[in-house]
């Protein structure tokens, strides 16, 4: 009886096994990248019915986010403005700016008919996830943390994955995003642009004790330094964080003194 299987088949099982390892690894990598919001959602940039440019309004003109998204600090939803908001500037007999622009046709038509403009939703959460804008904005999380620099976008697109893991990253580590409340809608904010003296003075004015601030500067488990006033704090901070203010410095202070405890339980977002 001759050799039924040719010689090369001796190595076939091994080759198959090795190939399978690579294929599995490839599938795993592929799925974990292509099937996650990082790939499927980031970059979503639908065409809107009205070519409204955030770049012009929020960027060039420097309008505050809250002029149009007026209830974002009060409600869970960041409301999309009504026609009346647009026509405050663009309306005949109102601001009168570029009233004849063809880009505004749909707005004028909507105002006349009373039918709303059907904007396309960019940042979409599943129905079972309940996100609340107001609590984030009132507690030192800026628009830019989730939506990116919308003021530089001609057409709004999604820049962050908005997946559960991504949410939890920040909920576990809020100090990387917290900023003073007057900087919430400043999309260009950098911690290094802050004035260290006024930052600490602000905390002191709010009734936070200098020792507590000093403790946060050096870290929870270090021996408490003595700090009598603003000058001691500035010296201490300079020694710990260097010349410019760092995000870590701001974030840890705010987290501690505003008692930021981002919830991590299911019930916080799922009801």
């Amino acid at each position, binding site marked *: 009886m001759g050799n039924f299987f040719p010689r090369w088949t001796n190595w076939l099982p091994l080759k198959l096994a090795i190939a399978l390892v690579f294929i599995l690894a490839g599938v795993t990598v592929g799925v974990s990248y292509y099937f996650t919001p990082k790939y499927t959602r980031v970059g979503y940039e639908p065409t809107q019915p009205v070519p409204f440019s955030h770049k012009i309004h929020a960027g060039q003109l420097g309008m505050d986010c809250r002029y149009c998204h007026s209830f974002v*600090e009060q409600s869970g939803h960041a409301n999309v403005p009504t026609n*009346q908001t647009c026509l405050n500037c663009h309306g005949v007999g109102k601001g009168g700016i570029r009233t004849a622009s063809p880009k505004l046709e749909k707005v004028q038509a909507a105002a006349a008919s009373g039918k709303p403009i059907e904007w396309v939703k960019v940042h979409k959460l599943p*129905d079972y996830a309940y996100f609340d804008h107001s609590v984030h904005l009132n507690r030192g999380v800026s628009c830019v943390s989730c939506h990116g620099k919308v003021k530089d976008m001609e057409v709004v697109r999604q820049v962050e994955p908005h997946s559960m893991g991504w949410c939890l990253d920040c909920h576990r580590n809020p100090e990387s995003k917290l900023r003073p409340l007057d900087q919430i809608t400043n999309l260009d904010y950098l911690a290094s642009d802050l004035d260290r003296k006024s930052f600490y003075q602000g905390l002191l004015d709010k009734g936070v004790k200098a020792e507590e601030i000093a403790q946060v500067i050096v870290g929870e488990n270090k021996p408490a330094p003595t700090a009598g006033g603003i000058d001691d704090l500035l010296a201490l901070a300079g020694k710990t964080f260097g010349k410019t203010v760092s995000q870590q410095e701001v974030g840890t202070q705010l987290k501690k003194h505003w008692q930021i*405890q981002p919830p991590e339980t299911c019930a*916080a977002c799922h009801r």
Partner: protein
Amino acid sequence: MKRTWHHPEQPTTGKRYWRSPAELERRSDFLNTLGVEFPGGDTLNEEERENSRREFIKIMGAAAGLMGLASCRRPVVNIMPYANHAEWVIPGKPLLYASAMPRPYGVTPLVVTTYEGRPTHLSGNTLHPLGGGLDAFAQASVLDLYDPQRSQKPMAKGKGAGWGKANETLASISAGAKKAQGAGLAIVVGGTTSPTVHRLLGDIKKAMPQAALYGYEALSRDGAIAAGKAIFGAGVKQVVRLGNAERILALDCDFLGNDPVDGDPVKAFTKGRNPEENGGKMNRLYCLENRYTLTGGMADHRKAVAASLIPLVAAHIAAELGEASAKTLASGCPDSIKAWLKEAIADLKQNAGKSVVIAGSRYGAEVHTLVAAINNALGAFGSTVELVQIAGEQELGTLEDLRKEIAGGKVKTVVSLTGSNLLYDAPDAAGLSADLDKNKVQLVHLGTSLNATARGAALHLPAAHYLEAWSDARAADGTYSVIQPMIQPLYDGVSEIDLLLALLGRKKVGPAEVVVPAATPAGPAPAPAAPAAPVIDAGYAAVRDTFATIAGGMDEDKWNFSLRDGFLKGSAGAAAGAPNLGAVAAIVGQAQAPAALDGTTFEVVLATDSSMLDGRYASNAWLQEAPDPITKLTWDNAAWLASSTFRSLGLKEGQMIKVSVNGNDLVIPAIEAPGHAANSVTIPVGYGQTRLGFVGSKRGFDAYILRKSPGFILTGAKIEKLDEVFELAITQDHNTMEGRAMFREGTAEEFKKTPDFATRHGMDAHIPENISLYKGQVGKKSETNPEGFDYETLHQWGMTIDLSKCIGCTACIVACQSENNIPVVGKDQVRKGRLMQWIRMDRYFAASEWGPDKAASDDVDIEPTAEQLDNAEMVHQPMACQQCESAPCETVCPVNATVHTEEGLNAMAYNRCIGTRYCANNCPYTARRFNWFDYNKRPLDELYWGPLSTPEKTGMRESLQLQKNPNVTVRMRGVIEKCTYCVQRLEAAKIKQKRVQRDSKNFRVPTDSVKVACQQACPAEAIEFGDLADAKSAVNGKKASKRSYTVLKYIGTLPRTSYLARVRNPNPAMPGADKVAAWSAHQS
């Protein structure tokens, strides 16, 4: 060390609580359901199961393959902002309005929660002098607004007619009536208290002096109204102040349930049921009734007597208290009742000035006259009963008056505004219909549903729901409320006021005419025209006019404050003069003693139904599915028979009987009702209606056909047993906890001696220390906090339910359904034990003094005597997720879909649940519900058709979508759900606090500022909820009560919900007082 525990053995002597006679007797049909994972959920045999499993996997495989293809594209979702700013509306935030719900003979003050203009949830208006919680009807009324089966367009003789034709008909009626001075026009209103309606009726009387006005409600109070007019004078109302009453005797008056007396009976009564308040002073309730009602369940002493004896009982009490004219009638009162009443009357007398007698509102004038005489003798007027003068109400004739006029051919047009359904629920409705036809009477009907009257009317107009139109109402004490519309009428509905205005020729009904703007000429843009004066709705103007007369001039500030608070301050009626008791003798003298009940005939009591009222809520699915508080029957009605009768007839549950009375027959299933009077049959009304869609059609059996004359007690009935057995959906044995002692009660005396009697029950007194392997959360562990919850910086939520106050109504169940988007499942699914309601109202019967067990047959463990069953006590205990700190459900979830929060909630992540149902199996409180189907999307009558269900019926009806609470996930098939302490409200409260506090540190939600839906709904204020970490919170105060206990404490689940044991206040001199609230058999 692992500790194993066992449930305590069922004792064989002493007191027992049971939900159904089958449970008490340990019958095999009950025991067989115990071991089954989901009783009724699994009807396949082993082989079928295997086949269906393979089938399932095949289909799922194909489906999964196709699913991949379908999900490639991300669907586009639109955001549609308001075109123009809407005042007050902040998208995503609820907006609350104070309004009121008109009821027959009264009003319920409300706060309406609206989201972007759609009302989703109702709660009581606590600012209102008579406001408090709600009952199930009020709570469920928001669903009526969105009922897909609602009447949506005008109809003529059952066929669609346009609004144009409707307006023509109304105009011709109006013109004709004006010409004829109103002759031939009859207007029938319900028990409305609306001053505007009464004012407009007055206007009609002025414009058409011969028009006749009638009042009709199927659950008529004509007797009480007639007695009131004779004794107190016209326009005088009795307001019962149960808060001042220490001794109450109810004569078949279900003032805690379906027969509300004027006043705020539930809140005022339950205020006096806490032995720890008012220096330990509790009120005492005596109750005589033919069947168990909620009031009977709360009574300290209750006697089951036939309803037809109530006039004799009233006469006996009156005679004992010195009313001479009552003596003749009183002589018929049976001696056994006299003996029972002896001490009760003595007790009432002793507490003169602090006692009150109240009678069922549907009894005749003689009963109410006698009760007035009794109350006068007890010195009740001015203390426990207030007499209030209400101005401006029109005199209304009765339906009998109208029928005489119709039969005499004097009536040409009948305009029906009543919420009742004339051609269905009137006495001898068929005769009325024939009379109308014979005399060619034109019937105009206004109503929200396409019921029998709507279909038979010459013109039917769809009515506006009370949340859709301007109206007003007066509460029992005369306090004036304006009813505000929350939403534009969904189907252009017409309100009562609109229709009256149309009859007066002041308004057109139907959709507002669209004003077409004049065409603008081409050329340069014209100067903007001056804004047109807003068109003021005539109905709105009419309500404002009424307000102006009541408030003494139109004051915009007053108007706005009234709208904000929900009532006009200081508008209560003035105190009326003393009652004229001279009229008693004449009315009582006319009364005839009822036919004596011999052993062979029965009386039939046509009772108010707890789901239908008089039949008007037939298409309300929440109410249909809310189990009757007494029988636990859903979706149908049945004849309630006393256990002794039921057993002597040898009936089975649901077996058909034929009830014959006055030559009318009714075939209806029978059920056993412990605690029922032996010679009496109770049949709830409102069922057996047709053509009301899936929810309302062919539910139960129409009991109205039995009556040919007004009155609700029919004597001389015969019962015949039939062979057929009807399938009823009774929930009393669902989610059973196997008879373990849940309910604890004692007497006031006992409470004084041993205040902590509740914690000495069963094993509670000697439980070994709980050793937990579960690591718990942040915070320090201690003996009182073994799971280590953080009480320093976080909230710790907890709840108490005071069983002394809980009356067992189903308001909390419906409130929970409304708040938490809980679906209804339909009768077939209820029969399979798949009811979705998160709160289960367990109703237990109890009787003490079991002898040693005697096995009656192979099937039965204990044989109770008929006497024991007929005299059983009844108690209620609401049961929902107990939020165990050491929750057995969490440890068995394979996917962590149910986990604990740091705040002590047993949370559910629905999107994570894969439906293993392990948690439901492991829940000792059986508080978890499983979505066997997509109940929200699938038509309930085609659940098993899968994707083949009728496309028009599939998917959630658009109108029902509007009702859903946007803050709660609508659960899908294959997911477990359960109470989460309204976590959406807790989160909203915490977020609000943070939003307001911003960069400061105080994040504790203000004490007792957040209320959960059931707590808010509870009319008895039995539920307390709050932050256990807040020392000042009310729930902490309740938890500290000696009466506080947790259910199944010995298994160590550490529930966050605890119960306060019920304390009853029996009169030691009464017969059987020693048995009232005797300690349960599980006492140590």
